[in-house]
């Protein structure tokens, strides 16, 4: 379940947590776009380095490193497929450009993962839903969205509860080799599905008992306001993305050359 930790909101107080979700979403999108526009290692490295202070400011280094470690497998796949296919299509020759490109692609993945993991780790689903609501998206949709975002940890929790109940009555799930253990998890599946359905019925029962759907328009206890810090960040992000697009077409970006390899 560690992989999901990089997407699970962690309630902390930091400047980043304090920012409006829309601001953060914009920043994540800007980072995402820039990393797509450029495939040069230099730019991607700068982008990566630029994210580090954000992660530290948000105090989410632990969760972030979990999500990167969770993605390590994918990073290796990206790196090796780029290398292998490049190598083959390059007439079986390893060049500096190929190596740099493959590394850049892996970097791109890390950057995109990090930028969205910063967003989800520092934005409570409540605020996320609020941001959607305030963008005049119908409440039913916002509700469905937040419920879906929340569903992963809820399901994980539910699964844990059932496993605990089963091993407390003698089902051995901690021993044996991988295959055996996987087989042991099968009794978990049906109750998990049944429980998920039952839970959603209970949820509906509880929600209706608290007047869910009584009024067309509902209010929200919280409200989001674009603060000064938000405005500054939004404007800078827009400037940065324009600069990036401009330089992509008008500037020559230096290429790194790895010694001992042909260019």
């Amino acid at each position, binding site marked *: 379940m560690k992989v999901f930790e990089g997407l699970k909101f962690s309630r902390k107080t930091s400047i980043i947590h304090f920012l409006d979700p829309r601001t953060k979403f914009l920043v994540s999108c800007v980072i995402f776009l820039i990393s797509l526009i450029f495939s040069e290692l230099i730019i991607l490295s700068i982008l990566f380095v630029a994210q580090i202070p954000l992660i530290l400011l948000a105090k989410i280094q632990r969760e972030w490193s979990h999500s990167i470690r969770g993605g390590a497998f994918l990073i290796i796949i990206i790196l090796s497929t780029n290398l292998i296919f490049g190598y083959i299509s390059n007439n079986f020759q390893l060049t500096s450009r190929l190596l740099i490109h493959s590394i850049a692609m892996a970097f791109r993945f890390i950057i995109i993962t990090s930028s969205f993991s910063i967003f989800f780790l520092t934005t409570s689903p409540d605020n996320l839903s609020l941001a959607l609501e305030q963008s005049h998206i119908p409440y039913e949709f916002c509700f469905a969205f937040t419920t879906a975002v929340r569903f992963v940890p809820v399901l994980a929790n539910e699964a844990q509860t059932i496993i605990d*109940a089963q091993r*407390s*009555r*003698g089902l*051995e799930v901690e*021993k044996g080799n991988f295959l055996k253990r996987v087989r042991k998890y099968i009794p978990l599946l049906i109750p998990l599905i*049944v429980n998920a359905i039952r839970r959603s019925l209970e949820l509906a029962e509880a929600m209706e008992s608290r007047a869910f759907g009584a009024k067309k328009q509902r209010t929200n206890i919280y409200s989001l306001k674009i603060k000064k810090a938000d405005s500054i960040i939004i404007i800078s992000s827009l400037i940065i993305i324009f600069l990036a697009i401009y330089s992509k077409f008008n500037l020559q970006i230096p290429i790194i050359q790895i010694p001992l390899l042909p260019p």
Partner: protein
Amino acid sequence: MIKVENAFFTYPSGVKALEGLNLEIQDGEFIGIMGENGAGKTTLVKHFNGLLKPTNGSIYINGKNTRETTVAELSKNVGLVFQNPDHQLFCETVEEEVTFGLKNFGFAEEKIVERTDWVLNFLELERYRKSSPFILSGGERKRVALAAVLAWDPNILVLDEPTIGQDYLQKERLRQYIEQLNGQGRTVIIVTHDIEFIAECKPRIIVLSKGKIINYATAKEALTNSENLSKASIFPPQIAQLFTQIADLGLPKDVIDVYEAKVLIENLLKGGKRNEGV
């Protein structure tokens, strides 16, 4: 035997639930654990079958460190009934709930049938044998959870709030059964807020507060120590309250049992003359 050695437990969220517990529970003891909401009672008993492992310190069950074994193995000896039956039940019928443990522990077919019949009868669940546990009433569900554990008759029985949703007759039957098991040498541990139930069971009592043990004494001592109890948000049982109030009439203070109370008061009222005569 259960041995808790300087156990600390902190939830991933950072809540410190147990703060350095030391405890020894011998085989055949009867223990009641009480304490305010959030005191750490559930957290503690989940350590007894290994569902939780202490963040610091150790727990030994029959000499075995819970870190070095599995929950399934521990459960053969330590049967845990969860506080919330919804966390414990997952089968499609009441009968399957009961047989689940029996099958895992490798009981013979006849034995499974015999134990299932017995426990469903005992907890008045026979007519729900084929029903889904989830359409039962709150109290009935709690009894299914109890049945699922009583079925394999573990040596150490840990009941987290067994009386929730139970009427007096059900509680009385449960109490008698617990006493019977305890008489046969089983260790029984109950966690409860039900002070009147505890006063009838009279186990040895552990008072837990804010993750620490603040009293470990006989029922009589613990339940009449109102100052200590109040630290854990508990009042003494009614009979104890009464006898504290009327101590000036020359009656003992440490009375918790209604039958004992009856004899004392009867003597006080009827024997008022007898007393003068002496």
